[in-house]
């Protein structure tokens, strides 16, 4: 807007935001109104995150109920039906109401700030997408009291998160439980597609001057890729839900095996969504690692172009691997071979990423603040999760272990050990930016170490009952199987994780009021979000930033040695 007055030889200037801050006291009603009508990407991002955190606690409690039920043989804590509802709701909630919203929340908050924009490309669509997802979540949980009334667990879905046909057809699931599931996922799918369109348009159309596609932070690249994946994978899920609803309401025969319909087709449609969904969830975790690891290693990210290529590569390969969830359903040997090989192929771009993170840390000056601790934990656990993934991709091995606790342990290793750990890292890293206060490092260390111990107790040990033949989704087991002690260890680990979560939630609340003041740039970082005050004002930047390298704040802090001189 304002032309800089005197050029400096280095070519770098800063614009200091000196807008006077007027803090007027607003009533609770006014504050509430502000949040409801907001179209500001930061507030919507925080709404997403807060919404997801509530459901994280809810779904965590459901997981605890599952673990308590399995702690001893012949337990009567839950009956079979309630147990089915618990694991269905746990899975559905964690994927659709925790994972996606929390990642979209961070994306909403960070992507415009990182690319030097003032808002998303479609701010109103953004608000709409959030509220549809939020209402869908509330609707799904309304099933506990809806329909049959408050007694018992109502009509909560009990068909597992993949809801295989023909169990979901009217004759086998009368009542409304499957309807609640399908409708909630349909609505949240609409919200997800809206947000994905928004993020894509933002990344491509809202960049500040100088922010070319080869300079945007890797997180923005990752969110663009994830959004593309959401477009091509959530849409099939939405289409499949529509088919299911046509079957249930209009008497269609898509998945009606009595009239020639195919249960396998549902499995295909679900996993065409289901497997790329894992990458929708894990890629943002990679994005957080891409931002956090360099800052705490004091080195620029190693191999930026390779990272971008690997991200896009993962997205495309992930579209061709879905049937590795279906080896036991029965395919031709050609199909088995193809999906085994394509699944193994994913390990190449993910391996590139892992080595690039290691190369970033190599020779750097590491600072083990809490975000970095969680990132290092993520690196180890991600590699292990990937290795069991390669084991399961081998179809004969898969025939042996499919639907056993080995599989459960494998995907929780990804979802908790990799994704949740990076989400925690992101909280510790960006909480100062979002609230203006640091999270307590002491509590953070407690959180990390308890989480590590609890996680490994639970999910390392959980592999073994799987190898011993314990199937998933059973509500109880016989005492003579030799699974009892292992299950007790797993439950004990889950309790430790619950304690760690409680510390984390306490830390979030406590630090908001009593945390150390953060200042604009507490970590000495390099991307544009740290050039704004904490928390950023509604307008983000008083003038449009102009950048000339991948690390604009490095250039600003080191005009004697700017990155832009080497691009």
């Amino acid at each position, binding site marked *: 807007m*304002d032309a800089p007055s005197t050029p400096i030889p280095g070519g770098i200037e800063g614009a200091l935001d000196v807008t006077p801050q007027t803090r007027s006291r607003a009533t609770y009603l006014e504050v509430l109104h502000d949040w409801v009508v907001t179209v500001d990407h930061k507030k919507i991002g925080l709404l997403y995150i807060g919404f997801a955190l509530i459901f994280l606690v809810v779904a965590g409690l459901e997981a605890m109920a599952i673990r308590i039920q399995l702690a001893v043989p012949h337990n009567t804590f839950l009956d079979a039906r309630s147990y089915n509802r618990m694991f269905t709701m746990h899975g559905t909630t964690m994927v659709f109401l925790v994972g996606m919203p929390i990642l979209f929340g961070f994306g909403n908050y960070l992507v415009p700030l990182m690319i030097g924009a003032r808002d998303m490309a479609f701010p109103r669509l953004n608000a709409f997408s959030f509220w549809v997802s939020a209402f869908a979540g509330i609707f799904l949980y309304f099933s506990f009291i809806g329909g049959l009334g408050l007694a018992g667990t109502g009509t909560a879905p009990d068909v597992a998160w993949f809801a295989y046909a023909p169990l979901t057809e009217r004759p086998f699931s009368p009542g409304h439980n499957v309807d609640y599931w399908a409708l909630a996922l349909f609505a949240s799918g609409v919200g997800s597609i809206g947000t994905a369109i928004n993020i894509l348009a933002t990344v491509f159309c809202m960049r500040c001057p100088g922010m070319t596609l080869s300079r945007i932070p890797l997180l923005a690249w990752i969110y663009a890729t994830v959004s593309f994946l959401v477009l091509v994978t959530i849409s099939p899920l939405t289409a499949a839900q529509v088919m299911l609803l046509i079957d249930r309401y209009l008497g269609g025969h898509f998945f009606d095996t009595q009239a020639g319909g195919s249960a396998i087709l549902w499995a295909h449609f679900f996993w065409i969504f289901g497997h790329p969904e894992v990458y929708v969830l894990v890629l943002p975790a990679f994005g957080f690692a891409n931002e956090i690891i360099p800052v705490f290693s004091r080195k620029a990210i190693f191999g930026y172009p390779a990272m971008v290529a690997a991200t896009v590569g993962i997205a495309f390969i992930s579209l061709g691997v879905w049937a590795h969830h279906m080896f036991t359903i029965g395919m031709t040997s050609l199909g088995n071979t193809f999906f085994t090989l394509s699944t193994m192929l994913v390990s190449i771009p993910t391996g590139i990423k892992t080595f690039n993170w290691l190369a970033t840390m190599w020779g750097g000056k590491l600072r083990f603040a809490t975000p970095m601790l969680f990132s290092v934990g993520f690196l180890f656990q991600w590699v292990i999760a990937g290795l069991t993934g390669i084991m399961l991709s081998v179809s004969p091995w898969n025939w042996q272990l499919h639907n056993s606790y080995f599989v459960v342990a494998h995907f929780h290793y990804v979802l908790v050990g990799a994704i949740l750990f990076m989400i925690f890292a992101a909280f510790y890293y960006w909480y100062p930016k979002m609230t203006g206060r640091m999270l307590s490092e002491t509590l953070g260390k407690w959180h990390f170490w308890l989480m590590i111990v609890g996680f490994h107790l639970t999910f390392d040990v959980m592999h073994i009952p799987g190898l011993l033949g314990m199937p998933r989704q059973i509500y109880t087991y016989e005492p003579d199987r030799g699974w009892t002690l292992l299950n007790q260890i797993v439950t004990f680990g889950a309790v430790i994780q619950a304690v760690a979560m409680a510390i984390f939630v306490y830390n979030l609340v406590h630090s908001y009021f009593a945390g150390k003041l953060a200042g604009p740039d507490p970590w000495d970082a390099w991307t544009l979000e740290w050039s704004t005050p904490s928390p950023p004002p509604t307008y983000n930047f008083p003038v449009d930033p102009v950048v000339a390298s991948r690390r604009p704040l490095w250039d600003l802090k080191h005009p004697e040695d700017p990155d832009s001189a080497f691009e």
Partner: protein
Amino acid sequence: MNDMHTPPQTHSHEVHTGTVHLPAPTAWPILLALGVMLLVGSLVMSVWIGALGAFLLVVSAVGWFREVLPHEKHVDVPVQHEIVEIEPSRAGVARIEVDETHRAQLPLQTFPISAGIKGGIAGGIVMLIPAEIYGLLRYHSLWYVVNLLGGAGVAGWANPTPEQLTHFRLGAFITANIIQGATTLLVGLLYGALLPVWPRRPILLGGIVAPVLWTGLLHNVLGIVNPYLQQNIDWWSFAASQVVFGLVAGYVVSRSGNLQRLHQAPLAIRLGVESPGLEGHKTEEDDRR
């Protein structure tokens, strides 16, 4: 917290004021979302909820429309900023020491990938000669090799006898040509892509190493891909034609020009490490030369 961070010295200038356009807050999105959800939810609840949802949907869609047309509603936020000059913080930047003696010595130039493709095409044609010689000597037929590659077990031609294999068959001929063409092109492409790894001896790579690896790989997986072909293949003549392929491809590649090879750059630069200073180092060295 940030012991390493030395904030740069700043000098303030005059204060600039301006306004920033931001989209105005609006309640229509949440109402539309509620309308959509009620409409969807009416399938498990009552028709009246659906009616309320439809009403909300229409009202808020119209409201939203009027919000963005003919002009998007904005709020203007006044902002002030001052331009500051940044003086170097003089915080010394630690560099990663690159010791060139223990780095891999990579060439500055390599053969282009197109050279590999050309080599692949040439090799693919020439390798027919030993294969055909084998076919002629052993079965006295020009078509045996072709049929074996293209027809047997592939296009619904189950378990043909060796007698059938010696006669011309159009389907098999076309399939064989496609397989041969696609494979040689792909192998040539792969060869071109691998050339930078071992650029000095293309004939050794192409003529010996690659055929050995390729034949070994095929020897192991052919039973899965095409069991019939595995039963009838003659591995020695197969390997011979692979070697011919590699030698010809390597020869074609090595004819594609003399490359500067001794001109070396540090590995870090070849790998794209974006550490400032490395590149400066390199240009100085170049100047000296």
